[in-house]
């Protein structure tokens, strides 16, 4: 039973407009009588909370950070796509739609992606009006640049901090509503459970991260904008606090989890320096425009000074394998090639756990050709950041890079209205699965978060509320709330009571190693089967040996981390299971059994569908449902970058 995706009928380009015209509305005088909970304050959450508050609903917004302005959307560097066609280079809504579908390797929902492309235009208008300081031309008009996966310049940017500026725009809109009293903001609150009443999402359970208080909140509906699950890999470019708990807890309450195996690995990150590494830092992909990627041909040379190695001893492997795209091969392909070189024993840099995981990104040819000042002008801030982290001067010595996890395309299953299979539970931004298929194009995460938050959710949430009417909100005192509260308290108590010797972080690291090795850039049946067994064993060990000092009252960082790791330990298994069943390679999902000499081989006949997983209880096998991807206007084709 896959629930109905509720794709509206009619021509693709008119679906959203005609659907929107049919969505039910709530009378302005009645809106304040509805209480909407928004969890998460990134681009999607802030935008949704601000817009719903402005419309007159009573909104409560929760985030785990100390201020909504700190959500991890803030770290996005590159830009945001929009089909404005300002450069007059032939862009259009249809072209952005087609690029996104192709970039997603034909595993995204057609109607959702088209809506995203349509709304991209309004997002830029909205953000400019809010005062987002996008880059400008001398004439005062907005500037654009090109980005991967497109032949037009449609990316708007604010230096290398586009995510920061867009989030601060959404945060200012949210702050305006908080100041006006229409949104109540609850920072330093973590959602630990979802409450269902009569099959509808009607509340959440949170823990106050300052006081330790666990309590429930009743509402007419719940909107989750809680981000992705990249931290299941332990090392990722995500913030430390990013976690899967909100979506996983909703999953345990019946929400389907779609395509968890679709994760994106970014090729240009600073390699791990050692076992104490806590996160990985992304370096803008633009570096590959002027840097050449290489490793020594001979593994014996890997510890030597790179300057001492003559050209003949170097393997410029991307240029060798992909002569037409060379160092600019797409993210997934460049990442896998770097992994292969390192697996071959030819990685460079410090040895961590006996392995050198890094490849050179060498600017010496560009510096010789263009001069150091030109390179400094183009990438100076990145070279500074690199030196700050590694202590190495990349003007004198090649940079070292290695791929890292930085985005997850999978998420809670939603229909066209961004409503999950649980009525009243809406999911926006990276937390849902719908728009990026098996691979996300650069500069489209910000676009999706804001499209969902500003434009889709305010319309579809209203439709739901109008449908359930004013008698829909439970008191918050009923048995469902008492039970959810008791279960959360019990779980907190269990974590505190284990009394073992191992830290939550040590489990997180071990889980990360398992999924990175077996469910990272290259996946195999054998490896995934082993990973599932290893994760189960690790999970059992966790509940026997984890140490969580403290009473749970007040600030308890070990408890916060332990709770998140416990959920990752359940979720990681689901991710591997999804990867195991998907017997094809598509986008970021690469099964070694399904390739043509290193190139991903899709199986459209068997796998042109969304896999949506249903929780069946702890220890029970989850059930996989398939939502077929019926394309009305797009033809399947194969990506090639040779």
């Amino acid at each position, binding site marked *: 039973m896959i629930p109905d995706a509720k794709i509206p009928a009619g021509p693709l380009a008119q679906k959203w407009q005609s659907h929107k015209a049919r969505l039910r509305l709530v009378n302005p005088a009645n809106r304040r009588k509805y209480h909407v909970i928004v969890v998460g304050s990134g681009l999607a959450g802030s*935008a949704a909370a601000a*817009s719903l508050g402005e419309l007159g609903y009573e909104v409560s917004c929760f985030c785990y950070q*100390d*201020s*909504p*302005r*700190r959500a*991890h959307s803030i*770290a996005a560097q590159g830009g945001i796509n929009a089909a*404005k066609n300002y450069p007059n280079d032939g862009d259009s809504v249809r072209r952005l739609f087609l690029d996104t579908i192709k970039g997603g390797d034909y595993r995204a929902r057609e109607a959702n992606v088209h809506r995203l492309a349509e709304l991209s235009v309004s997002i830029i*208008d*909205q*953000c400019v*009006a*809010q*005062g987002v*300081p*996008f880059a*400008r031309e*001398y004439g*005062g*008009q*907005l500037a654009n640049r090109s980005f991967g996966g497109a032949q037009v310049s449609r990316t708007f940017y*604010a*230096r290398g*901090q586009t995510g*920061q500026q867009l989030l601060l725009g959404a945060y200012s*809109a949210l*702050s305006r509503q908080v*100041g006006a009293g229409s949104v109540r903001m609850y*920072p330093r609150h973590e959602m630990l459970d979802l409450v269902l009443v009569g099959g509808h999402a009607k509340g959440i359970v949170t823990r106050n991260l*300052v006081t330790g208080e666990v309590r429930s909140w009743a509402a007419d509906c719940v909107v989750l904008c809680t981000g992705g699950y990249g931290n299941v890999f332990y090392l990722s470019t995500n*913030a*430390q606090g990013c976690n899967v708990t909100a979506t996983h807890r909703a999953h345990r309450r019946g929400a389907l989890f779609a395509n968890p195996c679709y994760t994106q690995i970014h090729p240009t990150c600073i390699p791990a*320096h050692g*076992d*104490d*590494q*806590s*996160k990985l*830092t992304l370096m803008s992909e633009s570096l590959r425009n002027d840097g050449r990627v290489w490793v020594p041909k001979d593994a014996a040379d890997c510890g030597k000074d790179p300057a001492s190695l003559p050209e003949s001893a170097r393997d410029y492997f991307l240029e060798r394998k992909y002569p037409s795209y060379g160092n600019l091969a797409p993210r997934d392909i460049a990442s896998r090639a770097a992994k292969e070189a390192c697996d071959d024993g030819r990685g460079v*840099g*410090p*040895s961590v756990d006996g392995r050198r995981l890094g490849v050179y990104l060498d600017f010496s040819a560009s510096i010789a050709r263009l001069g150091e000042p030109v390179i400094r002008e183009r990438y100076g801030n990145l070279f500074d950041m690199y030196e*700050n*982290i*590694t*202590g*190495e*001067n990349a003007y004198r010595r090649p940079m070292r890079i290695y791929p890292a996890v930085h985005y997850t395309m999978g998420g809670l299953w939603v229909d066209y209205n961004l409503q999950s299979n649980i009525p009243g539970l809406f999911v926006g931004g990276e937390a849902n699965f719908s728009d990026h298929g098996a691979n996300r194009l650069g500069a489209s995460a910000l676009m999706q978060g804001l499209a969902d938050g*500003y*434009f889709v959710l305010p319309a579809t949430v209203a439709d739901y509320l109008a449908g359930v009417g004013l008698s829909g909100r439970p008191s918050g005192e009923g048995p469902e709330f008492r039970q959810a509260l008791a279960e959360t308290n019990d779980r907190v108590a269990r974590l505190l009571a284990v009394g073992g*010797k191992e*830290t*939550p*972080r040590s489990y997180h690291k071990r889980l990360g190693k398992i999924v990175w090795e077996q469910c990272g850039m290259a996946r195999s049946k054998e490896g995934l089967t082993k990973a599932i067994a290893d994760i189960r064993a690790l999970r059992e060990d966790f509940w026997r040996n984890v*140490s969580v*000092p403290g009473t749970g009252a007040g600030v308890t*960082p*070990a408890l916060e981390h332990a709770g998140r790791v416990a959920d990752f330990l359940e979720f990681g298994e689901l991710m591997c299971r999804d990867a195991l069943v998907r017997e094809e390679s598509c986008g970021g999902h690469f099964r070694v059994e399904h390739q043509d000499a290193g190139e991903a081989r899709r199986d459209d006949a068997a796998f042109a569908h969304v896999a949506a997983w249903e929780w069946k209880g702890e220890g029970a096998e989850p059930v996989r449902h398939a939502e077929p991807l019926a394309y009305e206007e797009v033809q399947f084709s194969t990506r090639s970058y040779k």
Partner: protein
Amino acid sequence: MVKENSPAADHPATLRLRLRVWRQRPGQPGAFEEHELPAVPTSASFLEMMDLLNERLIREGKEPVAFDHDCREGICGMCSMTINGMPHGPLPGVTTCQLHMRNFRDGETITVEPWRARAFPVLRDLMVDRSGFDKVVQAGGFISVRTGSAPEANSIPVPKPVADEAMDAAECIGCGACVASCKNGSAMLFVGAKVTHLNLLPQGKPEAGRRAVAMVRAMDEAGFGNCTNYGECQAHCPKGITLDVIARLNRDYLAERVRAFFASTGKPRRGGD
């Protein structure tokens, strides 16, 4: 164990450090706690060094040191440690999370404290309550535009130098180092940065005066001190926000007060000052 083969690894690959860390529970006086860390990799970040300490504490069944941190790449503004008396430590232009241990000496004693400011009460150990910043933004740190009612983006041309200057101010990450470094605990650099960002842009002009006055008033109400031009805030800002933003804030504030004074001699009016 990491073996560095980089040219930066002239000094030992690990450091022996003594840490003096501030521990405090809400409503109680705090105190320094001393810890020896025998082998901190020079390649580790400052927060990874704190992780090492906390891992050891948890293994010993003790409560780890609470500190705020999130993105660990210098953009979210959550990390907030006073290191050897300096907010975000000794390196200019760097947040705590981007400070790396190779900047410290073997055998050094490092003192780690929370932000110290009246408006930032300590919640626990190194964590402080910076909600005063949110209150200031809620009072006027926005442009009042309804979702969906924005005009076509290119219908509002913004000269490039103006956009660039607004962007310089908009880079503020709201970490609070300016407040922590100021003898008066003033938030003028933070407020000035937001007012400068929005008031420079044509979109922000209609509310420019009201914004400056409302944000300054909220700043005072939140318990931040006054500016007496020490300039410590500029010296410790990890994002290079300069005192120019305070000058602009003062100018816009004064202009609005003068305007309101003369406007108020006419018929009674609502709003403004």
